[in-house]
């Protein structure tokens, strides 16, 4: 492109309203609202306070994983192992806390020990992913694919070692409260998520590390020459993703009162899908926590509306796929507009 083209580009005329809408970073939020409004005629129950609260509490654990994923996506990585981290952390954490021969049972510190176990599993797996990607130059897709396979299997295996049953229950009440409790009518998990999302937002927008993440995602070579510790930045992105998955595992395990080795196994595509629909790029360098929140909200509202309608699974799959595709097509058109601008 010549400099002449650039000058022209900056002289573009003001855009018509529909184009401005299409280019707005609130597009996904607007789509969600439109969808919600349409759904009010199909299932009026969607507009009750209870359902809205359900949407909110359903969003929370998914959102935490998606936030972790956002970090990895920004550095042009991908973390397929998040669901297996959720499962592994769930059974390990539960095995520490459970009243049925838990390792820390009766010590009085079981909840703290349990939560530490969750976080330890998340950070260790994240650490491993990060090391493989940064030290051994392995592609993130494959590293996390193998860790996903490994820990999905390992979670089941671990459960069989610990118990005859297929899951670990009898968890301390105070732990369960984290996932289920309400404060002033709002889910307690909301507080946890607000802290995580707030911290993530500030890291990305206000700290040096945040700026480095984007730089690494946009051009790792230039970032390295500019004094960005590229390997460290990528490494920590994977650790953050692992820890976020572990936190989400705490919320999931708490709300189900059970450590189960199949927890979260089906949410991988939802997590990545939510981030991408929100506008996070799979090629790195682009993403915001706010966008991820919109993406998760969008998918959760769709899910909730489909649940309320109680349709056969064939329709659920077809509708969900079509909506994701429609959102992606709209997004592709938006990109075309952005490029041609």
């Amino acid at each position: 492109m010549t400099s002449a083209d650039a000058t022209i580009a900056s002289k573009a005329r003001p855009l018509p309203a529909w184009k401005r809408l299409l280019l707005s970073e609130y597009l996904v939020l607007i789509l969600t609202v439109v969808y919600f409004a349409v759904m009010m005629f199909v299932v009026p129950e969607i507009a009750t306070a209870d359902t809205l609260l359900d949407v909110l509490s359903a969003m929370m654990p998914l959102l935490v994983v998606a936030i972790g994923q956002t970090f990895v996506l920004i550095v042009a990585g991908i973390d397929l192992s998040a669901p297996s981290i959720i499962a592994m952390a769930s059974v390990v954490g539960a095995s520490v806390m459970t009243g049925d021969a838990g390792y820390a049972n009766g010590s009085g510190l079981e909840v703290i020990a349990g939560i530490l176990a969750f976080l330890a599993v998340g950070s260790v797996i994240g650490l491993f992913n990060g090391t493989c990607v940064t030290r051994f130059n392995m592609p993130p897709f494959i590293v996390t694919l193998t860790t996903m396979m490994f820990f999905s299997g390992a979670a089941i295996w671990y459960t069989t070692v610990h118990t005859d049953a297929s899951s670990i229950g009898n968890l301390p009440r105070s732990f369960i409260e984290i996932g289920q409790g309400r404060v002033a009518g709002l889910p307690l998990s909301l507080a946890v998520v607000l802290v995580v999302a707030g911290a993530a937002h500030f890291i990305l927008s206000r700290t040096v590390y945040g700026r480095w993440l984007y730089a690494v995602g946009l051009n790792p070579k230039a970032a390295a020459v500019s004094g960005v510790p590229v390997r460290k930045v990528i490494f920590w992105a994977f650790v953050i993703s692992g820890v976020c998955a572990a936190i989400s595992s705490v919320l999931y395990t708490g709300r189900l009162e059970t450590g189960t080795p199949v927890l979260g196994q089906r949410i991988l595509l939802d997590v990545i899908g939510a981030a991408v629909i929100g506008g996070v790029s799979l090629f790195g360098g682009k993403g915001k926590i706010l966008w991820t929140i919109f993406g998760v909200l969008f998918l959760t509202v769709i899910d909730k509306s489909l649940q309320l309608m109680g349709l056969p699974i064939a329709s659920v799959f077809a509708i969900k796929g079509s909506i994701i595709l429609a959102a992606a097509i709209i997004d592709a058109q938006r990109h075309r507009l952005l490029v041609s601008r």
Partner: protein
Amino acid sequence: MSGFRGKFSLLVLQNAPLLLFAVLVIVFGLMSDRFLTPINFVNIVNQASHIAIIAIGMTFVLLIAGIDLSVGANMYLSAAILGVFLVGMPPLVAFPVVALLGLAFGAVNAFMITQLRVAAFITTLATLFIGRGIALYFSGNKMVPFSKSVLAFGRATYLGVPSAIWVFAIVLIIALVVLKLTTFGRQVYAIGADPDAAAKAGINVKRVVFTVYCICGVCAAVGGLVSGSQVAVASSTFGFQKEFPVIAAAVLGGTSLFGGRGGVLGTVFGAVLIQTVENGLVMTNANPYIYPLVISVIIFIAVFTDSSRTTVLERLERRKIRVEPD
């Protein structure tokens, strides 16, 4: 880095997947006397064929730096249409028909990706859901049976070789010829290396990309039918999450996810390697809980050595300015 040690480690690294394969064969062979038999080897290849066929199609997609997550859904949808609407076809008719169905599925992906410019990952993620939904609708969640003649074909052997291996061999030969001996095949590699340069060089990039996704669709459907002729019915989990072993097979075989590097022979090797491990674990009567653990560790080792090899090669091939006297 002394010359000899460098060369030796390079030699080891370059043949790492083969060495790994050899080690596995020896270990399993020592643990079970039924493992190292010709019949068992045929058995392994037979069971690997459907994954290998689909992975061959996936290799084309990976070579242009794309991805297709919808292969499993494609398998199921093609099989469901065949089983529900086109009952009782003999294999000679069923294969072309299923290939056309797969082609149509692939063409939908291709249209989204090339014409509407939606990212391949998200397109095929969406068609995964949609395809599965439509297939479930057609099948009413019931198991879709394949016709008697297709099942007979699934059991048949020709010249002592199971039918699945024949289909697999035919697909492999066609893929090899297409990739190595046609302009299209070379252009696939060119686009994988640099799509912008390919466009400037006058390659019709959209057409090649479109064709590649169609090929992947055809392979997915044909692989589905091969698998179906063996397992006799397509239940509602038919092809579910097949995309993972398929991608793993291609990557194990040295195909890069970033395009331009790899080939179908490697992919076939990867598929057979994975199946060898599964087979060996059964032969040695291992605890079923540890299957996924062992398989993932082996894939990890293979990819790890491949990455190390690339790193070493890059270091060795770094441009020399001075010729140093030894």
